[in-house]
Every structure is written in C-alpha cells, then in structure tokens.
C-alpha cells in the first residue's frame, strides 16, 4: 500500500505536464470550432455576392452588407427578436425559479431524482419534433382547439403568430433554466435560512437577503444559458411563427439557403452576436448597479440595528 502510494507520487512527479495541458482539448475545440469559424463569418460579412451561382466573393471588401442590414425592415426583425428573447428568458425565470426552489427545498431526495429526470425526458425527443408537436395543439381546427371551442373557450394562442413563437421558446428552453437554478438552490445550506429566521427575518426578507444572493450564480447561469441560444433560435420561428413570428435566426438561414448570399447572412450573424453581447453587457451593468445600491443601503442600516 505504502509502496503504491510512493510510486504514484514519484510517477506524478515524473510526468508532470504544464498546467494548461488539461485544458488543451478545450482550447483546440475553442480555436477550431469557434474562433476560426467566427473569423470566417466576420471576413465573409465584408464580401459580396457576385452572381446567382456563387455564394461569396471577397476580392473587394466593404461594410456595405452592414449598411443593408441596417435597413428599417431588418432593424424591426432585430427588435422583434430581442423582444421575444427577453420576454422568453424572463418567463423561463419566473416559471423555472419557483419550481426549482420547490424541488430543491421541499421535495424528498427520493422524488428529487425522479422529478429532475422528468425535466430531462423531453430532451429524448428531437428539438424539431417537440416543436412540431405544438403545431397540433395550436392548429385552429385541431382536436385541442375543437375541444376548447366545445366548452366555450377559444384557443388563446394561434399558430403563426408571435405569441406562438413566444410560447414555443419558453417551452423549449425552460429546462435550461431549471437545471442551473436547481443546482444553485440545492447547494444552499438550509441552516443559513434557519439562521436568518432565528435572527428575526421574515420569509420574504430571508428570501431576498439570503436565498436570492446565494442563488445568484445559478440565476445568472440560467439567464445566459436561455437567453443566448434562444436569441439565435431559428427552428421555433420557422415551425410556429409563419410570417408574423420572424426572428433574426430565420432571416440568417434564409440568406444562406434561399438567397445563397453568404455575405449578407454573415453580416446579420455578426450583428446578432453583437446584439447578444451588448444586451448581456447592459444587463450585467444594471445588475451590478442594483447590487452596489443594495449593498450601500444595507451597510447604512447596520448601525441602526446595533443601537437598537
């Protein structure tokens, strides 16, 4: 036993590799499947489409494609996309948080695994098929809508509307919000909440000053995990949106596939990346601002508590 340990120790010393070696696969992946492709998209976005049979030419570089993308029409598509993705992310948080909280704090550990497993079950089905399933539910003369009509209610959300896309993205991305929230809330030591209660904080105050700040890494992870892919989604608007629920992702796909105009598609893709980064940046700044204000207020309240 002792010999084995010493051998392992000396072995570890002999093959000691530089620290970044462990991250090498990730770096290779990052460089070849992210940096280089994004570099190409950036380069292509400066090109133009020379003829119907060529997708791209880059012998003459310009920012004209960006100019085209800033037409009022495309701008409206960007605004519509941002609205769908922000509302969608917020809805995922509002629906996902209570569920994750309940799952992490109120459910016995035996049921936790089963319920969490049920959240994963939809992923066994292809994203596209799951989305197409909603077409049957939302079809104006489908079984579901007929049943609702029979009991005197109409179908509240119609296929081929922006509301249908909104519903579809919340449905598709909700699990991505629940998982990080659950992990964050699960790790939260119940003793902290009890301590807060013992020190006289009410339920709401405990939630606001203990649970929420400790869960914030999970909330931030969930927001990013949902917001970023949702903003670039093109399957949901394609399947449920018709002409009304258009999103940038669908427009990009159409530029690449139908118009065969890689330059215009690339310019839209770069603008989408910029829009996502800018939104995340602005939200991060707002979040930091709110946090520092709250902290400042709390610090100010300390002496009062002491004197009382």
């Amino acid at each position, binding site marked *: 036993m002792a010999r084995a340990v010493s051998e392992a120790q000396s072995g570890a010393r002999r093959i000691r590799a530089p620290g970044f070696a462990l991250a090498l696969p990730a770096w290779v992946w990052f460089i070849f499947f992210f940096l280089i492709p994004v570099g190409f998209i950036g380069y292509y976005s400066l090109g133009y489409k020379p003829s119907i*049979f060529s997708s791209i030419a880059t012998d003459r570089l310009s920012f004209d494609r960006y100019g085209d993308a800033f037409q009022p029409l495309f701008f409206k598509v960007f605004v519509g996309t941002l609205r769908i993705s922000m509302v969608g992310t917020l809805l995922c948080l509002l629906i996902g948080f209570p569920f994750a909280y309940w799952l992490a704090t109120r459910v016995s550990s035996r049921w936790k695994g089963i319920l969490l497993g049920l959240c994963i079950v939809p992923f066994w089905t292809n994203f596209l098929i799951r989305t*197409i399933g909603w077409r*049957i539910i939302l079809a104006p003369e489908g079984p579901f809508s007929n049943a609702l009509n029979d009991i005197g209610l109409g179908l509240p959300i119609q*296929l*081929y509307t922006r509301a249908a896309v909104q519903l579809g993205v919340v449905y598709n991305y909700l699990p991505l919000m629940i998982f990080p929230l659950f992990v964050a809330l699960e790790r939260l030591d119940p003793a902290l909440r009890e301590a807060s209660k013992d020190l006289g904080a009410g339920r709401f105050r405990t939630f606001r000053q203990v649970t929420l700040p400790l869960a914030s890494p999970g909330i931030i992870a969930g927001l990013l995990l949902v917001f970023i892919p949702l903003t670039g989604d*093109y399957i949901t608007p394609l399947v449920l949106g018709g002409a009304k629920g258009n*999103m940038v992702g669908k427009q990009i796909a159409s530029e690449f596939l139908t118009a065969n105009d890689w330059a215009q598609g690339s310019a839209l893709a770069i603008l989408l990346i910029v829009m996502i980064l800018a939104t995340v940046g602005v939200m991060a700044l707002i979040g930091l601002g709110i946090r520092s204000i709250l902290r400042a207020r709390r610090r100010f309240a300390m002496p009062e508590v002491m004197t009382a």
Partner: protein
Amino acid sequence: MNQQQQPVKILAPRGTAQRLSRRKFLAGSTVALFSSSVLLAACGTDEPGPGASGTGGGSIEDELNFFNWAAYDDQALFETFTTDVGPVASITEYPSNEEMIAKLATAEGTSGFDIVVPTGPFIPLMAAQDLLEPLDLDRIPNFKNIEPFYTDQPWDPGNEYTVCKDWGSTGWILDTEKVSTPIATWQDFIDVAMGEASGDVSLLDAPNELQGLYFWANGIDWNTTDPAHYDAYEAFMVNELAPHVKAYDSYPGIALTKGNYALSQVWNGDARQGLLDVESRGENPDRYVWGLGAPDTELWMDTWAIVKGAPNPNAAYAFIDFILDVDNSLTDLAYHGYHTGVDGVQQAAEDAGLTYLDLVFFSDEQVQTMHAQIVNEMLDRSVEIYQQAQAASGA
C-alpha cells in the same frame, strides 16, 4: 449476394420537415415497415436481384439518391422501383429552385445526389454552371412516351439535359366559410388578401411566385426586366401586401383545409391534395374553392435531370425510364396531381376514375393564359424583394 436493402429514407431538412404532415409521416413509416419485410424476404433467397443485369454502361447500382421537392412523388413508386429494378431510393428535399441550386453549386459535384428536379427556366443556368450531366436518350427507351408537345422545350432544346417530369400552374384556394367575396382574378385575390382575409393569407414561399402575383394582377409581363416595374413591385409587396400575410407556405393545400388560412396562393396539384384530404377526412370539399390564376398565370414544368458527378448514374437512367412508363406515370399523377406529359395518361386517369381532374388537365384556352418564367438578370432583385417581404410580414 450481399445486396443490402434499406428502407426508404426521408432526409427532410428542417425547413421542409414542418410540411411533413402527420398523414405523410404515417405513410412514410408504413413504407419503412413494408421495406423491412421486403428485406426479410430478400434474406431468404439467394437469387440475384433483377437489377444485376444492367443496361448499357455497367450494372445498376444499389442506391439512388434524389434531391427533390417535398413529398413530390408516391412513395409506393420508389418501393416498386426497388422491387423491380433493385436500387433503394433515399430522398432529400428542397423548397425552391434557388435553394436547390445554392446547395448543388456549393457542393461542386460532390453532393452525392443522382437525380434532381429543376424547373425548366433554371436549366440553362444550371447547365452553364456544369451542375447537370448531359442525358443519353438512347438509355431512356420510354422517352418516346412523352407527348412531343412537352419535349424540346426552349430552355432545353433537344432534351440535352432533362426530360419532362410534370407541369402545372398557379392559382388560389379559399375557404368559403371565411371569405365571402368571390375571386376571379389576381387583383381580386390581392383585394381580399388586404381586406376580408387580412392576416389569414398564405403566399407561395418562392421569389418568382410573389413576383408573378403582382405582375399578373397588373397586366405586366412577369418576365419584365424594367427596373421601374420592379420598384413598383417592391413598394407594393413590401409596404402594402406583406403586412397582411400570415405565412409563406409552398404547400398550403392541406393546411388551409385544416383551418390555417382563409386564402392561399397555391399550385394546382397541391390544391387537389388538399381537397382529397378533406374527402378522406369525411368533410365537405365544397367548402373550399380552387381558382386558376387569371387573367394570366404561370406555366411551370419540372424535369428529371441527372446531377453532375452522380455516384449512381445507371440507377438514375433506370429510374427515369421506369417513371416514364404509362402505368407508373399514372400512379404518380394520382398522387401529386400534375399532368406528366406522358401520352395517354389523361385517358388512363379518366378511365381509372380519378377525381378533381379539372385541377390536373387544363383546356387549350386556359393554357393560352399561362406563361413560362424566363430567368433573367432580375433574379437577384426578385430574391431580395422576397427577403424584404418576409421581413416586413414579421415586423
């Protein structure tokens, strides 16, 4: 004998998979089940398949890869072809000529597809770009079955690259429970689309069809190259019509009869599929009215062509010859609802008691009002307006 039989595969890209209705999907699964039983049966025998004999340039390959429009041909035909000749068909779908050309041109001869189904006016451009294999008509004995009227077309003189698959036209279908105004012309269509049926209209998901809709309604040659006409078309389509459009859908026939639209621009065969579907559901088909585009409309012809660098050319020739057989042609026509141009197929269809043949075969007066598209230098402009219209509908 190690001939591997596989079920018919439908590799539908995301864009088209949405149009795979439940009915079609179930039909596809049935075919897949059926083929597995063929596979089991084939395992029991040691006889070489009939395809092993071959015609001309070597033996017939085991596979045949189609690049085709969505749900365009009767699955049973591919099954029969596999049983009779040997090759197993796999199908990849595309929604428009522009997209098909984009993919073939990008692949530069390595697409792996054998047979493609381009629409007539796009063929000269595809040939010039070396995307198509010239045909050896001697290897297609059944070519003689095509009526001379449908051979030797202006866009492919002497059938150098293609043979007629079928031809059709464009019109509209409406739901009389939602639209009370009768529609007789494209102008009526536009008026209803922007009035009574606003927000419940679908247009075909192809640049040339939007272009046609405007030009036919306004009595302008739809092959015009006058930029002023295009400016007017752009202003109308993007600013006026697009906001009323619910979806751009190339196959609205069945969707409309399921309540998705009040009014749709539609190809005749797809309208017929919608009406047949209504009948098969036991509902009243009289509720839906088909109209052929007027005063002018489109005449399009889709063709069978062999892709440059096709890995299975012998199987491709065998299939084209197979499908030009009158019986097989009738089977396909009964499914897709377009005139195949094969001599005697109209008589055969009448004898077989097929319904809605007025949506399949047109009178001489009707054909007089149909005009083939010419692909000209305005194509890029047309695609651009189509993109903008889609953006405007969503805005």
